[in-house]
């Protein structure tokens, strides 16, 4: 498989993640629940939160706001029917972040901001692609849940990395995320190839 084919596969349609809305809940509350039904998003979000949380001695304000901005931008583009499935790419980002957590890699703020923006854009585009027609309330609910989950995870990561065993626990979690992402990515790519 040459590099061009590999890029094509990564950019092509990912896992179908559409699920029926919960009847009677309304668009906003369905949007709130939406991320919890999509494992690639959750895995990527947890990985991003732990990765940022590992940098607790640095300011994570810019990456957190960058994520929110990218999320709003990409979900907003759903109004113009701009959105494409990115579940495979999200898994790749989760895997990379898992390895970085495992390695306890330290990154400057611009690199963390770039990763957060990339994750936000990918999540937004994927959710936008699932929405049959643009629904503002649904997208607002989705954005709110994703951002709150990032903040909770980030705060937990910052608070949880103070003792040595907690720090090790985060690195072990990184290895689990990387292992899961590697397995499912390879399954996806190999199935597409065949």
């Amino acid at each position, binding site marked *: 498989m040459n590099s061009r084919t590999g890029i094509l596969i990564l950019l092509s349609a990912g896992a179908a993640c559409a699920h029926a809305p919960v009847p009677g809940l309304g668009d906003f509350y369905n949007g709130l629940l939406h991320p919890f*039904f999509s494992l690639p998003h959750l895995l990527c979000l947890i990985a991003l939160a732990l990765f940022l949380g590992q940098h607790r001695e640095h300011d994570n304000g810019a990456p957190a706001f960058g994520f929110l901005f990218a999320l709003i931008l990409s979900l907003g583009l759903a109004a113009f029917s701009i959105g494409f499935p990115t579940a495979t790419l999200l898994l790749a980002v989760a895997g990379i972040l898992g390895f970085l957590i495992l390695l306890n890699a330290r990154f400057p703020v611009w690199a963390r901001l770039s990763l957060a923006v990339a994750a936000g854009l990918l999540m937004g585009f994927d959710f936008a692609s699932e929405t049959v027609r643009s629904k503002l309330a649904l997208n607002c609910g989705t954005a709110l849940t994703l951002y709150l989950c990032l903040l909770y995870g980030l705060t937990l990561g910052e608070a949880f990395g103070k003792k040595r065993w907690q720090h090790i626990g985060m690195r072990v979690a990184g290895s689990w995320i990387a292992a899961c992402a590697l397995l499912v990515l390879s399954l996806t790519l190999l199935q597409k190839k065949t």
Partner: protein
Amino acid sequence: MLAAFADAHSGQGLQGGFVSGFLHPVFGLDHVVAMISVGLWGAFLGAPAIWLLPVVFPLVMAFGGVLGIAGIPLPGVEIGIALSAIVLGIMVALAARPPLWIAAVVVGLFALFHGHAHGTELPHAANPLAYSLGFVIATGLLHLSGIAFGLLDRFAAGKVAIRVLGVVIALIGLGFLTHILG
């Protein structure tokens, strides 16, 4: 453009995938004893092996899983899994303290076999990501239970108990190798 794999996340798909992935290593005695012995040996070797070995295991296991998914045959998978229990059990029983890199290579080698066995199951799972999460978490918890038992090392009676458990693990591995068990 290219067909994607079906991953509709209905409750059944997610739960079914996670539960079957979680239970797969737990219900296989050969997997259980090998993974407990990884944690046990890591705890026995102390830092940094106590966390490095359980980190090496899932990563190399994932690589073995990729081989299984790709259909690349790994000769003697079942023998390798049985041998993992025997070798790791003997290491614990003899209180062997090799250099860290040797311990990591030994654990990594056996993780390949375990990963290959799991990997061949992955394409049939209801939800592959939930399945892989389930079995990676189950593997980690089995390591943790081995580490918890290994922490008895600080007591004189605990040292004996750990070495006895190492013998039991090696015997179970021998049982699988000779098909008396399984």
